[in-house]
C-alpha cells in the first residue's frame, strides 16, 4: 500500500531547496519593486504601484522594450540561419572536417569580455581591420559603435557570431541521426536537393530547432554583458535593452525599486512569450507530443 506522507516527505527537501533558490529571490524582487531605496543605504520606502506606473508611461522603458525585440529578433534570425547553414556544410564529408568542427566552437568558448575587446578593436573607426577593408573599396569609414543604427547592427552581428556554434552543435547532432534511408527514398522519388532539404531535413530538425530557438531566445532576451561591454547601451540609448535599463536604473540613477519593477515586467514578458511559443509550436506540430 502506498504511503502518501512518505512521498511528500521525500519530495520535501527538493521543494524546499527550489523554494529557497528560486522562489525566495523571485518574491524578494517583487516585494522590492513596490519600494524605493538607495542601493547603499538600503532603507526601503513603500511606494505601492508607483514604480510600475512610472516605468510603463516613460519613453525610456518602451524604447528599451523595442530595442530588446530588435536585438532578439536580429540575433535569432542571424544565428539560427548561420548555424543551420554551417551545420549542413559540416555534415557533408570533406577533408579537414574534424578540424573545422573543432574550430567552429571557438567563438562560443571565448570569454565574452575577450570577444567584446577583439570586436571593438576590429570595429575601431580609425585603426580597425573592418574599416580598413571598407576603405580599401573606396568607401568611407563607419563609426560602428558610435552611430545608430550601425551600433545595433554591430552588436547583433557580434552576438550572433558568439552564439551560432551552439546552434551548429545542436543541429549537427540531429543531422547525424537522420536515417539515410529517408534521403534515399526521396531521391528515388525524384526529389531535388532543395526538396530533400525542405521535406526531409527540416521536419527532422523541428524538435531540435524548437529547443534551440527557445533557449537562445531566453538567453538573448536577458543578454547584458556583451551589450554593456560593446556599447554600454549607447550611442544615446540606441542599444539600451531592458537588462541594461535595469542596470542604469539601479546603479546610475539609484532607482533600485524601479529597476526591480522593470525586472519583474521582463519576467512576465518572457513568460508570456514562452507560453505563446509553446502554443504556436503545438498547433503547428513542431514539437512531438509526449
Amino acid at each position, binding site marked *: 500500500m502506498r504511503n502518501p506522507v512518505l512521498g511528500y516527505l521525500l519530495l520535501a527537501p527538493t521543494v524546499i531547496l527550489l523554494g529557497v533558490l528560486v522562489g525566495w529571490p523571485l518574491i524578494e524582487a517583487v516585494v522590492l519593486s513596490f519600494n524605493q531605496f538607495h542601493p547603499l543605504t538600503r532603507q526601503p520606502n513603500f511606494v505601492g504601484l508607483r514604480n510600475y506606473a512610472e516605468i510603463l508611461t516613460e519613453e525610456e522603458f518602451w524604447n528599451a522594450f523595442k530595442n530588446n525585440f530588435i536585438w532578439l529578433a536580429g540575433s535569432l534570425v542571424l544565428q539560427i540561419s548561420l548555424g543551420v547553414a554551417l551545420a549542413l556544410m559540416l555534415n557533408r564529408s570533406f577533408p579537414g572536417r574534424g578540424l573545422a568542427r573543432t574550430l567552429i566552437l571557438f567563438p562560443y568558448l571565448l570569454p565574452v569580455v575577450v570577444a567584446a575587446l577583439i570586436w571593438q578593436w576590429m570595429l*575601431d573607426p580609425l585603426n580597425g581591420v573592418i574599416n580598413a577593408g571598407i576603405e580599401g573599396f573606396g568607401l568611407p569609414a563607419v*563609426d560602428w559603435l558610435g552611430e545608430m543604427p550601425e551600433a545595433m547592427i554591430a552588436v547583433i552581428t557580434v552576438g550572433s557570431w558568439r552564439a551560432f556554434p551552439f546552434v551548429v552543435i545542436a543541429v549537427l547532432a540531429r543531422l547525424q541521426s537522420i536515417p539515410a534511408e529517408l534521403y534515399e527514398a526521396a531521391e528515388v522519388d525524384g526529389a531535388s536537393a532543395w526538396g530533400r532539404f525542405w521535406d526531409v531535413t527540416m521536419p527532422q530538425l523541428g524538435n531540435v530547432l524548437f529547443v534551440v530557438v527557445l533557449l537562445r531566445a531566453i538567453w538573448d532576451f536577458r543578454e547584458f554583458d556583451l551589450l554593456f561591454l560593446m556599447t554600454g*547601451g549607447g550611442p544615446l540609448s540606441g542599444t539600451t535593452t531592458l537588462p541594461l535599463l535595469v542596470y542604469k536604473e539601479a546603479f546610475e540613477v*539609484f532607482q533600485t525599486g524601479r529597476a526591480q519593477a522593470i525586472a519583474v515586467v521582463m519576467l512576465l514578458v518572457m513568460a508570456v512569450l514562452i507560453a505563446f511559443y509553446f502554443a504556436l509550436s503545438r498547433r503547428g506540430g513542431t514539437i512531438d507530443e509526449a
Partner: protein
Amino acid sequence: MSVGNKRPTGGQRDISRRTVIKGAAAGSALAASGLFTPAISQGRTKLNVFTLQRAPLQMEAYAKMVASFEAAHPDIEVDMLPVSQTDLWPKLAASYAGGDVPDLVLQVTAENIVSLYGQGLLEPLTDVVKEIGEDDFEESARNLYFDKGEYFAVPASNNCVSLLWYRTDLLDQAGLAPPKTWSDFIAMAKALTGNGMYGASMPYGQAAMANSITWTLIYEAGGLVIAPDMSVVFNDEPTYKMLEFMKEIHEYVPPGANRYDFFDVLNAYVMGTAASCMYTGRAIVNVNTENPAIADSIACTPFPIPTGGVPWWSGAFEGIVMPKAGKNYEAAKQFAAWNFKPEEYIAFINATPGHQIPTLKSILNSQAYRSDPLLQKYPEALQTTIDTLAKANATCKPFDDFPLILKAGEIQGSGIFAETLQRVVIGGETPQKAAAWGQDRIARLMRT
C-alpha cells in the same frame, strides 16, 4: 599583501564530488561557528581598500606603500582593489549589499565623497588630518571636507582636468597662439584638422569623463546645474551654450569620439591622432612613455572659457574616505595616515608626474617632489597646473560660499549629462530640448 586582482595560483585538478561536499560541510560548520571572520585571517587584521587611481605605475607605488606599511604593522594585511570611476557606485552598492564594505576608499573625487557624506555613509577622519598636520593641507582642499567640526575625508591630492594640452609644433606651423576662448579653440581645432590629424580630442561617450566635464563647461559659461537652494537649473542658457560648443568642436574630433572616455581622449593626443585634448597632467608621462617622438612638442594652458564667461576651472580634490560599515576603523586610519608619509606619498604622486598635485604644502614645495625628471623637463606645464588648481573649485561646491551639493556624485554618475550631450551631438536634438530632458531627469534624481 596583495595588490590588484587575485588570480588562481594552482593548476587545475580533478576534485571529486565527495571532496566538494566535505569542503562545503566544513565551510558551513566554520561559518556557523562564527570562528571565521573574513576581515581577520591568521590573526591578522585584513584591510580591504579600493583605489580609484589605478594606472600600472600607480599600482606599483601602492604595492611598495603597502609593503612598507605591512612591515611596520605585522598584524595588518592590506588588500588593494583598483576600481574605475565608472564602476565606483556599482562596486560600492555590491559591497554594501554583500556586507563586505571596503575599510578605506582612496583617491575618490570630490563629487563622490560629498555624496557618500550626504548619505551618512562616512566615518570622520579628523584625527588622521590632525595627525598628518592640519595646517599643512592646502586650504581649499582641506575646507572642502570640513563640516560640523569634523573632517569627513582626508584631501589626498588634486588634479586638474581643466587643462588644454596642445602640440606646440603644429600651432607654430599654423601660426596660432594657444586658445583662450571657446571660439579660439574651435578656430584652432578647425585649422589643425586635416591630413589624418584631428584638431581636438574631447569626450562624447556615455562614461565618466563626459559626465565630469559637463559641470565645468556649464560653470565656465556662467551657469549652474544646481542652485544654492538645491533646485535644478540645468535647463538654462549656459547649458545651451555648452551644448552648442560641444557640437561645434565635435566636427574636429577623431571618428570614434562618440565613445571616448578619459583614456581615449588622452590616447588620441598621445598617439598623435589629435592636436589637442582636455586632460590632466597625465599627458606628460603618457607621451614620454608611449610616444616620445612628440615629447618636445607638448604644452598646456588653462582650458579656454567662452567669451563673456566665468574663469572657472575644476579640480578633482581626490580624498581618502572611511565608509561607516567598515570593520577595522583603527587599522584603516593607520593606513590612511601612512599614505602621507613623505617617501610613500611622493612615490605615489610621482608615479604619474604632473597628473596629481600634492595637497600637502610641505611636499608641494619640497625638492624631493620637484626633482622628478619629468617635472624638471616640463616646469611650465607643472606651474600651469599648480596655478590653475590654485584658482580651481570642486564641481560639488563651485564657489567658496556655495553649499555642498550633496547629490553631486549621483548626478555625475547617472549618465544624464553624457546622454544630454549625445542627444544634441548624435541625435540632432536642439540644446533646449535636450536640456529640458536632462533637467527632468536630474530633478527626479534630486527627489529620491
